[in-house]
């Protein structure tokens, strides 16, 4: 019985004009979106390679004690599918001797219009076009049949209403998959035609598989939602109005309003304020230690019978040399303590900010998860390395790079500050033993995007929610349809 009903749904839908319009739309938009995204990725990859090469050629041997090494973030291969936060992500990490690494993004946008209107990548096509198509396919499958009178005739037979409902979901789902799968395969062929991308590469296909599964789940959710909408109304006009209301709320409303609600409910200061607070904290601590160094310097000079004002840059007398030697030994502890306190203070500020930002982000994410489109967006963008967790991932990579540069360069230089204040501090720099500056080079940043397993571990709730949405919409539709007035 179910097979007969599914066959009828498939035949009926394929004879409908909507099927051909949707097929044409999918066949144009999905491959075209993939082509444009591929080109965009190739351009970003070329820019990354060129920038890194130029940097290495011109500054790769600059391994001085105060060098600010630059580590470049390569574009994520999977960002072809979901550009996500990529345009807003820092391009490079810049290290410093103080232990603080900062992110940098070149000012200016190459193509501002594309950001203004959003890019038609795979995720956009799935979230907006495919989800709308699923609702358009299904919104009047029950109410429309009631309106035509065919539902009455069908239910006059010995058929369970649940079977009719299930057939409508399965039939419409299968029919919608036909143009989607064809368009997706065409898109993959376009992707594979690139000289720098292989669909079968180990970095691509496992994530691609998960993306396909998530997409298929989302389509099923939207089909179930469409059928559910159809059981809530008694005519096509009412159904289409409800369809647009539901679509606007699910696709445009909830994902956009949730972060705004989170900001209003749990406001936090901006990144600039935190950066300024960190700078002030560093200057305060360094000022405090500069005074201590001056006092130490004065104490050393007094101990050996010389006054600090008389000391020139280079010690000349025995007293000066002895004073310098003592200071040289004792200032190391102060420098080390100063660095530790600066690092601790900044780390605390950063951690506080990150904790509060995480609370706000969690609130926004959890609120927006009311919409199945948001669940899909979080998962797919996470897999593509362009999701909301990626800024933290960048910081993790940048801090790792800072450690790498510290071990390769900064630790090979001993820097001592002898005299503070005006006109200039008196700083002595020397290399550690065994460090050959001519052979050393600036290390390259090995950027690691979040592995699939980690994304799935963090995103299991989204997968679960997609299943829950399916069950929920089917349950509501089932309950409604069993009480549906077919007269």
């Amino acid at each position, binding site marked *: 019985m179910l097979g007969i009903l599914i066959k*009828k749904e498939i035949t009926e839908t394929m004879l409908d004009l909507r099927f051909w319009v949707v097929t044409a739309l999918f066949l144009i938009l999905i491959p075209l979106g993939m082509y444009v995204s591929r080109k965009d990725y190739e351009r970003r990859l070329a820019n990354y390679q060129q920038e890194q090469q130029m940097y290495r050629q011109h500054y790769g041997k600059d391994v001085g004690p105060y060098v600010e090494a630059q580590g470049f973030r390569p574009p994520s291969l999977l960002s072809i599918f979901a550009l996500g936060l990529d345009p807003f992500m820092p391009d490079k990490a810049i290290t410093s001797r103080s232990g603080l690494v900062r992110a940098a993004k070149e000012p200016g946008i190459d193509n501002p219009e594309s950001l203004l209107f959003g890019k038609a990548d795979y995720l956009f096509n799935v979230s907006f076009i495919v989800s709308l198509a699923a609702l358009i396919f299904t919104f009047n499958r029950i109410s429309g049949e009631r309106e035509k009178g*065919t539902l009455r*005739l069908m*239910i006059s037979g*010995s058929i369970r209403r649940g079977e009719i409902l299930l057939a409508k979901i399965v039939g419409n789902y299968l029919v919608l998959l036909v143009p989607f799968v064809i368009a997706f395969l065409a898109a993959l062929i376009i992707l594979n035609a690139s000289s720098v991308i292989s669909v079968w590469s180990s970095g691509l296909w496992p994530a691609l598989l998960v993306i396909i599964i998530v997409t298929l789940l989302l389509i099923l959710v939207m089909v179930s939602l469409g059928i559910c909408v159809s059981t809530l109304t008694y005519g096509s006009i009412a159904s289409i109005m409800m369809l647009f209301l539901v679509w606007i709320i699910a696709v445009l409303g909830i994902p956009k309003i949730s972060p705004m609600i989170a900001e209003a409910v749990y406001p936090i200061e901006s990144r600039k304020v935190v950066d300024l607070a960190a700078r002030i904290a560093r200057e305060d601590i360094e000022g405090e230690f500069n005074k201590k160094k001056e006092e130490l310097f004065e104490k050393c000079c007094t101990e050996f019978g010389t006054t600090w004002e008389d000391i020139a840059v280079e010690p000349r007398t025995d007293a000066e040399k002895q004073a310098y030697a003592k200071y040289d030994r004792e200032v190391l502890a102060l420098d080390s303590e100063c660095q530790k306190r600066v690092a601790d203070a900044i780390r605390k500020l950063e951690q506080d900010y990150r904790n509060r930002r995480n609370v706000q982000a969690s609130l926004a994410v959890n609120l927006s998860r009311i919409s199945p489109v948001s669940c899909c967006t979080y998962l797919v963008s996470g897999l593509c390395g362009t999701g909301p967790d990626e800024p933290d991932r960048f910081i993790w990579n940048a801090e790792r790079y800072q450690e790498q540069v510290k071990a390769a360069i900064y630790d090979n230089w001993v820097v001592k500050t002898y005299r503070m204040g005006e006109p200039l501090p008196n700083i002595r720099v020397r290399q550690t033993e065994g460090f050959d500056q001519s052979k050393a080079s600036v290390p390259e940043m090995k950027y690691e995007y979040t592995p699939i397993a980690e994304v799935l571990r963090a995103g299991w709730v989204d997968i679960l929610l997609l299943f829950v949405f399916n069950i929920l919409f089917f349950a509501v539709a089932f309950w409604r349809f069993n009480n549906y007035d077919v*007269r």
Partner: protein
Amino acid sequence: MIEINELTKRYEDGVLALDHVSYAVAPGEIFCLLGANGAGKTTTINILLDFIPPTSGSATINEHDCNKFPLEAKKYVSYVSENVQLYGMFTARQNLAFFAELAGKTGLKKKDYDDVMRTVGLPEKALRMRLKHFSKGMRQKLGIAIALLKDPPAILMDEPTSGLDPTSAQEFLAQLRRLRERGKAILMTTHDIFRAKLIADRVGIMKQGRLVAIRKKQDFKHADLEEIYMHEMQAAETI
């Protein structure tokens, strides 16, 4: 075959659509329900098809309660509505095949479809036509064809002659006679007293949810059924 026993239906808004109605339709009998709009004729059919539940009383088809065991009961019945609506984008054959398969009649051959089309007076070439090109009369005939293919012992018809031209209506009546000869129990609601007189074995006259009278063929065969109908309606008014 079809039994209505003290059937009552009161809608949520308080309207009493059926008031303790009882009658039965035997195999090989055509029972016509007559009455004005809102008399409760269609409500009876809606309860028999489990579109709505009764408030009290029972309706059975082949001894299966339509409310308690609707799937069982509906195995023995076909339904022809006032305005047969089928799938417009399907051909006649696709429509026939779909509804026949739903009734468990699988594996039908071209000859079966040709035969049923001939029986209801539709040309065989109409099998390949899409339903959206069918006239109302053709759709009604196809509705009968579906009922024939399903071949159940009981048939429910809700105003089936409404909107049919005289020729189509005549053909339709001829079809009903053939069904009766095949032993089908037919319950038909209608406003058409003239055709009810021609075809019915018994008529039931309904007013405001009550079955005010049942008349056998011999009561109206040589009398004016319209006069009987009006008389019963007036008599019901005075009660």
